[in-house]
């Protein structure tokens, strides 16, 4: 059974999904395996902190990561690797 993920872990999983490729909200929800309400909450937070941006393409809205978001993701990966060395799963 999968352990409950922390809020920060979900946020960084979403950032990692968007970093791979620009995607729509439904793709993010499916890949991150979170409910829509949770996604909206996190999306608002990420947009406010300018970690992601919304890009309109016709009638579809795509999400793209910013340089600031990429930096944060890099730092997070480093930190996650460090904590795993101590046996934690952040």
């Amino acid at each position, binding site marked *: 059974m999968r352990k409950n993920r922390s809020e920060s872990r979900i946020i960084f999983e979403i950032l990692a999904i968007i970093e791979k490729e620009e995607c729509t909200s439904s793709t993010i929800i499916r890949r991150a395996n979170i409910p829509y309400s949770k996604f909206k909450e996190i999306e608002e937070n990420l947009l406010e902190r300018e970690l992601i941006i919304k890009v309109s393409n016709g009638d579809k809205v795509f999400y793209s990561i910013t340089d600031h978001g990429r*930096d944060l993701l890099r*730092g997070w990966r480093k*930190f996650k*690797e*460090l904590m*795993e*060395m*101590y*046996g*934690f799963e952040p």
Partner: protein
Amino acid sequence: MIEEVVGIIGLIFSLIPLVILPLKIRTGMLKYFMLYIFLVLFYAFYISYYFTGNNVLLAFLYVFQMLFFLNMYRSYLAKELFLSLPAIFYVNDIALIFSFYFATFNLAELLRNKINKKNVSMMAVLSLIFFDVGIIFQMLRILSSQDYFSTMANGIFLIGTIFFIVPALRVVRKG
């Protein structure tokens, strides 16, 4: 003199991760950074006790040592423990027994993860071995001669601290 050097080296080493790890990550992950903060507080009280000889500072030293291992064990503070803090302050031995308990369980957990091929650093395992040996040595010194500030135990604890900090240095160096 040796105690002084041990304390200063310990404080410098325990401060390194707080300085070099990225600030943005640090603010979001406070519960993990408490791991390093308790170690810094331990050495800060160690030095204070060494220079003043005040027994209250010694009590704090033992409490922060215990909180360091407790935080590592659960990665958050168990609120139930705060109920027993007055007793721990009153009798340092209780804090040391708790430290031994948490450090040993951390070590068992890390070894289990290592056997299960998780990404656990051998340095972290080694550090806990030294921490555990240091605590056992301190307990023996208390039992044999009521020495609550053993140079040998503190030296072993310092070796554990250095091993504990190495993974942070390696991760930062990789960039």
